[in-house]
């Protein structure tokens, strides 16, 4: 096999590489394809932003992702769609087992969603529009032309607000993101990098490249002998005779997460009997960071690969939990520790061959919950969400008259494996009521507080204390409610061309 080369940025949608942070205005449209031919032509006519770096960045951006239904509606054969992953094909809401695993039960149940929760409201296409502040409506008008109107029905038009990287509860957000090894310089040998690293193999983000296991994730590979259009696609790296529909594309997970900001601050306020300092402290314990993003643990002893070692990024993100195994500084169950536990393949303390052997055979545990949490590098998400709704300050949120309101996060993440990355994090880490040895509690922010099968409640949050007994709070209400969600595939740019090529050859709208 030839030496790995850097990817063709011009074939990758920009969102995989950039968060469009400078384009403060964004709008997400969830669409049903009404006329496949028009939809295909419209997609081909719009300027999909690529990941190529330019001197003068654009004032606007546009990204497109399709669901499995969308791929079928636009003319892709079932056989090709079957090449995508099981989770993508089934969709986020169609299967009760998946809903159980994701915590989408009770108030979060798909039948209560505003979109995506039933067969008729599963979107076909996600259109993401970005622009400089004040330019979004003009950009929308340019893009959403007459043909757009004929091609699609809008099932949800999701506005966002520029929140200055502060999420609605009031905490700095988006600090911890995995870095991607774009140049493919690091080894993809499974055993070469067993410390916690923030630098992920390209195959954890894009299909068509080796992932953290050194493997290619399954995806549709098409034989040009049976499908001429396949020539439009890049060649599959590990199968030179086949063309790769997945290459340079990512799965995109979207969830509309409503955040009940007044309930959050009122609950905390009530727990601390109105003491402002303790209020901040408890809230920061639940999140795992102070409001400005300062972590609750000190810097890592050995710098974590893939995180800057100087400047603000270092202060906010250059840490792991190796020196806080019991969660006495940052509670085990806190939001950031659940979302990114920063564990390596082995627990801390593996220094040589002997300690490694001792650990491989399961011995040498230093405390009971040692080695419970999975290795983090296999379960990372690249987040691209945006905040929506009018933002409340803590003071306003605490006023008795303040209403729940419509605000929260349009959560978006990009992954190469929906089940191993997004679903695993959501299920085992965020919703896991036994995560890392905690007793019957789920994520203090995201948790659905659903009782266990023996009726035990999970509405607790415990903060271990070096003095002995942990500080626990109880009867915590649900603060975040899922109100919509779907799995999409954000294709590479040539793949998008391929996907829309069927409507030309077949002509006419698909019924």
């Amino acid at each position, binding site marked *: 096999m030839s030496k790995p080369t850097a990817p063709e940025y011009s074939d990758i949608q920009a969102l995989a590489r950039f968060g469009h942070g400078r384009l403060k205005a964004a709008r997400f449209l969830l669409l049903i394809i009404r006329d496949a031919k028009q939809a295909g032509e419209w997609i081909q006519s719009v300027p999909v932003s690529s990941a190529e770096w330019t001197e003068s960045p654009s004032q606007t951006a546009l990204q497109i992702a399709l669901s499995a239904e969308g791929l079928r509606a636009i003319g892709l054969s079932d056989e090709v769609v079957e090449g995508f992953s099981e989770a993508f094909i089934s969709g986020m809401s169609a299967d009760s087992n998946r809903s159980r*695993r994701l915590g989408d039960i009770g108030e979060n149940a798909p039948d209560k969603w505003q979109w995506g929760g039933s067969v008729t409201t599963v979107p076909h296409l996600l259109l993401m529009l970005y622009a400089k502040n004040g330019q979004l409506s003009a950009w929308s008008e340019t893009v959403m032309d007459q043909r757009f109107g004929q091609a699609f029905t809008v099932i949800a038009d999701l506005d966002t607000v520029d929140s200055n990287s502060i999420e609605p509860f009031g905490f700095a957000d988006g600090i911890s993101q995995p870095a991607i090894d774009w140049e493919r310089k690091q080894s993809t040998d499974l055993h070469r990098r067993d410390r916690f690293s923030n630098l992920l193999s390209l195959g954890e983000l894009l299909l068509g490249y080796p992932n953290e296991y050194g*493997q290619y994730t399954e995806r549709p590979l098409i034989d040009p002998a049976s499908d001429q259009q396949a020539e439009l696609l890049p060649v599959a790296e590990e199968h030179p005779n086949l063309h790769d529909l997945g290459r340079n594309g990512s799965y995109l997970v979207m969830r509309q997460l409503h955040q009940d900001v007044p309930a959050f601050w009122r609950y905390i306020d009530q727990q601390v009997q109105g003491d402002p300092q303790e209020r901040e402290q408890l809230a920061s314990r639940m999140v795992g960071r102070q409001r400005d993003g300062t972590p609750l643990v000190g810097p890592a002893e050995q710098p974590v690969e893939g995180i800057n070692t100087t400047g603000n990024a270092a202060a906010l993100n250059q840490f792991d939990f190796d020196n806080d195994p019991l969660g006495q500084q940052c509670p085990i169950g806190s939001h950031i520790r659940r979302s990114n536990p920063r564990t390596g393949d082995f627990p801390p303390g593996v220094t040589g061959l002997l300690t490694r052997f001792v650990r491989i055979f399961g011995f040498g545990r230093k405390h009971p919950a040692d080695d419970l949490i999975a290795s983090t590098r296999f379960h990372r998400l690249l987040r691209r969400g945006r905040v929506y709704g009018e933002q409340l300050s803590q003071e306003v949120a605490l006023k008795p008259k303040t209403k729940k309101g419509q605000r929260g996060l349009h959560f978006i993440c990009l992954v190469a494996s929906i089940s191993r990355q997004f679903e695993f994090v959501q299920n085992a880490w965020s919703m896991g009521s036994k995560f890392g040895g905690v007793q019957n509690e789920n994520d203090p922010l995201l948790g659905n507080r659903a009782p266990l099968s*023996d009726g035990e409640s999970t509405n607790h949050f415990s903060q271990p*204390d070096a003095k002995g007994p942990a*500080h*626990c709070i109880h009867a915590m209400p649900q603060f975040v409610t899922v109100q919509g969600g779907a799995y999409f595939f954000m294709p590479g740019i040539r793949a998008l061309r391929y996907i829309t090529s069927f409507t030309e050859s077949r002509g006419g709208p698909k019924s």
Partner: protein
Amino acid sequence: MTPQSTFMIVANIAEGQLEPLRAQLESMNSEPGVLNRHTALFPFSRFDRLHVARFLILETVVTEDAVFNLPEAPPRLVFLGDCDGPEDTFIAEMAVLAAPQLRSLFSHCESFIAPHESLVNWLQKHNIQPAANYINWLGRTVKQVHEEERLQQTLSMQLRLIVDEVGRDDPRELRQQLLSFVEREKAAGRLTLTPSAPTPIVWWLKNLLHKLGVPLILLLISPLLLLFSPYLIYRLRSLEKRDPESVARPPRTHIQPLAMLEDHDVTNPFTAFGEVKPQHFRRYAVRFFLWLLDYSSRHVYNRGHLTRVQTIHFARWVMMDDNRRLLFASNYDGSLESYMDDFINKVAWGLNLVFSNGAGYPSTRWLIKRGAEQEQKFKHFLRRRQLPTQVWYKAYPGKTAFDLARNSRIREGVEVRQESDDEIRQWLAEIQV
């Protein structure tokens, strides 16, 4: 110490009885995957020695699998479980306390006995021993689990009151108050902590013989193994190079009925059934490694973890059909995805030793390398061989293996006084407030 044991009753399902039996089994659930604990069809909760149990229909579901060579086996009804104390007395107990239910279920099977014949003899005759068996914590009885759960709950509530009253600063004071509280509760009959029963002497002797005997046998045959090792290595490598894989994603019609049953409790049952590769080498290899696995779980891994994996309550590997097929049944905490990830990231080498002898397994190198490390292939392989568990019982829903171990540590702290303040603090930290 009361040792745990295991039973597995297997019988061929009679012609035409498969669907009625399936319906009868499924009617024991309140919804798919959730046992109705008051079902009249089997009185699970009457057996206070029973940890976990399942009824399942053993079928060769993946007959479309290209690497399977054996003729299709008749469908079988399997009733397996793990209990405290010897399994023969437990089977006898079931034959008495659940006679009508067992007769009704097994009446769907071939050559079942007439009403006047002995049920217990029939059950014993159809009981199969596993080639390897894993018990998360040897000696922890169901009764103990329940008592310790109750202890943890009362202590937790009491500690909350005490902390409100005297604060957290003095660990010795907190412990003193908790211990006197336990004494008061015990005296009032609200709390019981039954002492461990004496270890049965015959079991103890047998166990000791096994503990010493297996290494002795290994030592004796080691020259032989060494002598033949060049051939064995040559044979292994040549097989590894040409053994076919069968690792395509199973069809949705296979996955959906399985997924429907999963993730109702923090623990899930897992059952998989597959063929062993046809060569003699493979059939001996799998038994050899299972023998070692059985030894290590009996004598080494009987305190809360199987190598690095801490989420398995009970597991068994059973050779069936003249050692040509292998059944694997386990009870694990978390979702199947995280179970498989645990496998792959923590014990790929161990899985490879045993399962690489299974037909279609992702290709290995030198017996322990690659194989399960090919994450997606391995997950498909395993899913493809998985069978639905029609009925599943666990005596302590909502509790993980880690929960049980923690409750035991809490109990230990009640009975054995910690020396240092640090140890007391650690003990207090485990009692949630």
